[in-house]
């Protein structure tokens, strides 16, 4: 037994159990939470270089699973998000006798499907297997987005479908050209010829659409803002990270030797524009959930701004760690923020920022959770967001790159502006609105996630060490042995 298998098999088993249990499906999280957190912890403490082939069938046919730094950071964060979201959704998606709704029943199996799919995606190095995991995650994501607005869900569905097909087209070209779709083998075999470049281009384009990098972000704000709070949290925190992880695998592992610096700069430039555009749009929003959704557009920019910084660094391990820490802290903070926003908006029965007046007194814990998440998102110390942005800024200055450094600073300022606005409204006002008390679990979930995002700021060295486990040669340098079999 290995956590590499169980991290995928267990959520799928819980999905089956949720389907069979019917009404009682939501109780399963009481078992699934501890099991998944324990498995994630097991994954983190595995010795470095742990990897194995599913069914012991050798490459190039088989599928390789691997516990590298990316997985060791993202799997536990994903588990934390899912557990918190599930506890939060406990009441919202509970089948009530007499007034049963489809979503109360279907939310739980889909949550486990998404969980299993994300874990499978982080752990595999097989590009076709990644296609199947993308579809597992998208399927659940589309259905969750459609719970809020069917029209936004349908738009998301069609765009995600074309994105996955673009990715599949690239996989088809690679599979025919190199007789393998394994990233570790492609790293050895790939040559810079037309089919390979074509495959990289269409795969990257498809994944960028699914990751919603500016200017391909159009579908994200309506879908993420309209969905119910737990669904928004999962969509913004977890779903878009999978596309990003696959891009890391492609750009820094499978094709690290082939990709030109100009392409890295292009991606970095798009990231910079995403930061500026998303922040400005977030500042202009009147509705709280749209603000948070546009903040996702901006924060995604940082992930890609880091690409040229990693590629050109003297010591690439540092920006590599930064981008992973940013992914993790954004995951935790954004999930916390959507959950807290959901509580706040439900309390005031509105969706505008101006509706929040005086809320800090009425529901201090939820506003605190929002504020803690905001600290991490804006990159203020001490927080995971700060660690990530500090490392990125350090790398940019070290390389003498003025534009990324400036964008990092300006993005941080703009982030502080748009995140401060709802908080200042919540703290303003003389009278506290009358608010119905929420269940303790629902209040605790966002607070726990936001605190985790802050706590990451104190674990910088551990995170950096974890991120370098079995890192691809392009990041770890040539001394590191090839990723183990």
């Amino acid at each position, binding site marked *: 037994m*290995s956590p590499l298998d169980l991290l995928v098999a267990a959520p799928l088993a819980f*999905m089956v159990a949720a389907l069979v249990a019917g009404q009682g499906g939501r109780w399963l999280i009481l078992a699934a939470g501890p099991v998944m957190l324990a498995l994630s912890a097991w994954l983190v403490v595995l010795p470095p270089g742990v990897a194995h082939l599913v069914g*012991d069938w050798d490459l190039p046919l*088989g599928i390789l699973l691997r516990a590298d730094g990316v997985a060791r950071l993202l799997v536990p964060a994903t588990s934390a998000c899912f557990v918190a979201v599930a506890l939060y959704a406990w009441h919202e998606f509970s089948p009530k006798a007499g007034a049963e709704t489809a979503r109360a*029943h279907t939310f739980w199996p889909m949550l486990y499907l998404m969980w299993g799919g994300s874990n499978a995606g982080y752990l595999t190095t097989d590009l076709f297997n990644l296609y199947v*995991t993308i579809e597992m995650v998208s399927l659940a994501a589309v259905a969750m987005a459609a719970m809020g607005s069917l029209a936004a869900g349908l738009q998301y569905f069609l765009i995600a479908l074309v994105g996955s097909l673009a990715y599949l087209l690239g996989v088809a070209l690679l599979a025919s050209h190199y007789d393998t779709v394994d990233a570790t083998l492609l790293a050895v075999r790939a040559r810079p010829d*037309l089919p390979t470049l074509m*495959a990289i281009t269409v795969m990257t384009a498809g994944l960028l659409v699914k990751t919603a990098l500016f200017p391909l972000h159009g579908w994200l704000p309506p879908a993420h803002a309209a969905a119910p709070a737990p669904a928004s949290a999962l969509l913004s925190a977890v779903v878009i990270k999978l596309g990003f992880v696959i891009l890391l695998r492609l750009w820094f592992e499978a094709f690290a030797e082939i990709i030109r610096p100009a392409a890295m700069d292009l991606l970095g430039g798009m990231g910079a524009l995403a930061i500026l555009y998303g922040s400005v749009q977030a500042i202009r929003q009147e509705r709280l959930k749209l603000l948070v959704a546009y903040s996702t557009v901006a924060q995604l920019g940082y992930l890609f701004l880091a690409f040229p910084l990693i590629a050109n660094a003297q010591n690439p391990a540092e920006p590599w760690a930064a981008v992973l820490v940013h992914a993790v802290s954004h995951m935790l903070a954004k999930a916390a923020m959507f959950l807290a926003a959901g509580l706040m908006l439900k309390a005031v029965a509105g969706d505008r920022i101006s509706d929040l007046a005086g809320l800090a007194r009425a529901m201090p814990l939820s506003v605190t959770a929002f504020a803690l998440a905001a600290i991490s998102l804006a990159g203020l110390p001490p927080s995971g967001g700060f660690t990530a942005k500090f490392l990125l800024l350090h790398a940019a200055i070290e390389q003498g790159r003025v534009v990324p450094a400036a964008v990092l600073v300006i993005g941080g300022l703009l982030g502080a502006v748009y995140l401060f606005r709802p908080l200042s409204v919540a703290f303003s006002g003389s009278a506290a609105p009358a608010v119905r008390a929420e269940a303790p679990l629902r209040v605790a979930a966002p607070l726990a996630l936001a605190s985790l995002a802050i706590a990451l700021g104190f674990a910088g060295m551990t995170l950096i060490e974890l991120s370098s486990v079995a890192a691809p040669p392009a990041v770890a340098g040539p001394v590191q042995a090839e990723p183990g079999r």
Partner: protein
Amino acid sequence: MTATFELILCVMILGTACVALFVRDFLTAIAFFVVFGNLLGLAWLAMGAVNVALAEIAIGAGVTGVLLVLTRSRLLALGEEIACGPARPWLRLGAAAACSAFTTLLAAAVLSIAPGDDLAPVVDGLMPRIGLDNPVTGVLMAFRAYDTLLESFVLLGALVAVWSLAPPAAWPQPPVALRMADPAALNVAGSFGRLLLPVALVMAAYLVWVGSDRPGGAFQGGTVLAGGFLLAAMGGAIGLPRSDDPRLRWALVAGPLVFLAIGLAGAATGRFLAYPDGTAKALIVTIEYVLAFSIGVTLALLVAGPPARAGTGP
């Protein structure tokens, strides 16, 4: 001779695709799409890929075609136009230009890849270890069983996702009934469905059984089964189940569950999804039978759609 046949086939594939995409009337489009799918099946036959041909005709043309026809009639019943006006000229022109450029690049990329079955010897070398003769089943159920396992959950998840779309107060009613409204037509379709359901059962079992050694397998068999269920439902021979029926739930999860359980049993004795020596064939056939049954039920319900309020019909 063969080359001429393939050339004509490709021209027909492209022609039917063009009509299916760009003809104004959507029913014509669907008809041509189904023909397109069948021609693709012929193309796969011409390539000697009988397994794919079966899957393409049954799933790609058959199930997808039925889905499109049903959705069209549901939209028409709601009074929605599907044949929308043509796009603005500049958009059409721009799209045509961009897509031609993209196609040219893609074609150039495809041309520079040498076709070849370089992995076939590798697969053939491994086949004796699992005791099957159909190499495609070997790849699907052993060498890349992980893909297939996840894929079975994709199918199950798609049904759950479709269910999540049920309108308020419809849960857990059955989907909109598929049975024909006209009594005389129901009579005709009913006797056809009653006759064909057992035949479909036998056919599905046969397809799964021969799938170990010759073309066939769980997905092809499951699709035949789904076709039998759908015909029987259209003829009123069987009703559609409520979505909270425990027997239905077990029928849906049985295939993925057995697959997962056998995979985990492999993990307990060695490696996830590894079959102990000598047991591979028995285990694979077991998985395939249960999986085909679950796939049949899942596909049929996917076509039927989300739960609907009682009394609403097309």
